[in-house]
């Protein structure tokens, strides 16, 4: 089908945002388990969560360009019982609100205040809820695609796993970049975040590879025979019924050559996974911070290409009805 740029940006940007928040939370768990003394912890987590929130906001902003009546989007929660899109619409603002509260609770050191009067560390509670919602949002985003059974390339649990792993990979990479921006907490947590970025990039690579090889073996569920109910081996469309353009032709055909698709696939595999791994490894061994920075930029570019390919590779059964003009 034809990839929509608004959705490409929405899914990659919120993926980074959620991944980064989870990365910072895990770093905090790591710090408290290992007893690391962090001098500017509240600053670090506060600014870091705010940074994650910015990516979420940018994603939300991009999503509006996908809708032709964004003003009516306010009613998009109504089908939450059955529509994963509805569930995402509910979860995304929820994540953003709780993430903002969590960022502020660090930034303004609300934890001290609440701890004193209630005995509950508010930052842990808020960031714990945010992490939970982030994971739910990953599932909702992935399920939007995985639940459309007509796109057989998407209708697999791998879609959800890929969304989760690629979000975590880019989120950890961004968190590793963030840890190298001069925070003293960053010095203590930088290595933890960087190695996790490496781990999740490799995991995402593996699961993407798995999904790609699965899709190569895919047999279409529908055929010309079932599409028009004529059971003959040779069926050819003479005309789709119109010579002009139509929605069905624009939405479900990407119009690129197989060679373009092949090269985009090679490019995104290199940019999303191979190059970031090399850059992160070299950056950490030789302590070259620009390498770590560029790992994130390269990975983001790669993930945008990956998302483009994800949409373009998907073939819809309706295409059987639109094969010839005249």
């Amino acid at each position, binding site marked *: 089908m034809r990839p929509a740029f608004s959705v490409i940006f929405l899914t990659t940007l919120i993926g980074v945002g959620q991944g980064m928040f989870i990365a910072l939370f895990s770093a905090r768990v790591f710090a408290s388990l290992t007893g690391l003394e962090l001098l500017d912890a509240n600053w670090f987590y506060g600014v870091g969560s705010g940074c994650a929130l910015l990516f979420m906001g940018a994603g939300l902003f991009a999503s509006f360009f*996908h809708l032709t009546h964004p003003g009516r989007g306010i009613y*998009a929660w109504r089908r939450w019982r059955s529509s994963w*899109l509805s569930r995402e619409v509910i979860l995304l603002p929820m994540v953003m609100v709780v993430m903002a509260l969590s960022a502020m609770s660090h930034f303004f050191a609300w934890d001290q205040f609440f701890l004193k009067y209630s005995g509950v560390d508010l930052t842990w509670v808020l960031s714990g809820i945010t992490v939970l919602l982030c994971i739910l949002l990953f599932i909702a985003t992935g399920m939007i695609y995985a639940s459309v059974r*007509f796109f057989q390339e998407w209708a697999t649990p791998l879609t959800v796993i890929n969304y989760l792993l690629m979000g975590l990979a880019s989120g950890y990479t961004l968190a590793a970049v963030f840890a190298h921006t001069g925070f003293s907490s960053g010095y203590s947590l930088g290595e933890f975040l960087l190695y996790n970025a490496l781990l999740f990039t490799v995991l995402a690579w593996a699961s993407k590879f798995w999904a790609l090889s699965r899709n190569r073996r895919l047999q279409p569920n529908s055929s010309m025979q079932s599409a028009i109910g*004529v059971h003959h081996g040779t069926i050819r469309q003479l005309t789709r019924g119109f010579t002009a*353009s139509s929605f069905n032709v624009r939405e479900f055909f990407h119009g690129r050559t197989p060679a373009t698709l092949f090269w985009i696939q090679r490019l995104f595999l290199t940019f999303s996974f191979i190059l970031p791994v090399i850059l992160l490894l070299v950056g950490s061994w030789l302590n070259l911070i620009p390498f770590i920075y560029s790992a994130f930029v390269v990975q983001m570019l790669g993930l945008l290409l990956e998302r483009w390919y994800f949409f373009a590779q998907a073939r819809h059964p309706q295409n059987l*009805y639109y094969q010839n003009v005249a």
Partner: protein
Amino acid sequence: MDKKRKKQLALVIDLNVCVGCHACVTSCKQWNTSGWAGPLTDVNPYGENPSGTFFNRVQTFEVGTYPKTDLIHFPKSCLHCEDAPCVPVCPTEASYKREEDGIVLVDYDKCIGCKYCSWSCPYGAREFDEGQKVMKKCTLCVDRIYDSNLSEQERLPACVMACPTSARVFGDINDSDSQVSQRIREHGGFQLMPEWGTKPSNHYLPRRKTVVSIQPDQLVRADNPLKIEGELSVPGKDDRSLDDYTSW
């Protein structure tokens, strides 16, 4: 087992008699672009690269290899599936299936234009209107079939009214006595892409071969029953027969 069956309006399209004239396409377009719901927008209709919204298309397929081919004209519109996959995915409840007659409709005032429903239709029955920026689809002419201002025989979808060969029949497929149910039953009605489990309500009737079998003895005069008894010899080809003497 006295459960009352739900009404499900649908079309039955006879591929055996469809001649591919596109009268249903133009009639549908004319009716549905003129109603209170707004036009079926045509973008750039007289310029380069025109594009328009239609509820109904007639496609043509060639089956077999020349010269042993068959030409199938294939009208395609929303099939008003009994288990419509486009409905539960719509986030705003703009897409819905009517309880009372099973028609799948879009509330244009609720549609946000996310196009998710079109992804969830294997038949490509939904078309996005570039003018009103909402998703549209066949309504089974819901604004005709219940209009008491129209005479009884005109309360039919516009495509059915227009079809010159009566290839389109409209009715309740859950009423076993209806014309559509009889046609489905007696002429081998089938559904499109049954593999997806969408249970389309619209059915298609297959091509039927009209075969006349003539035996060689039918080409000569064989209508004299007496020859069977052996009382008379078989009459010559040009001899007068019973038909020439009698007016039945």
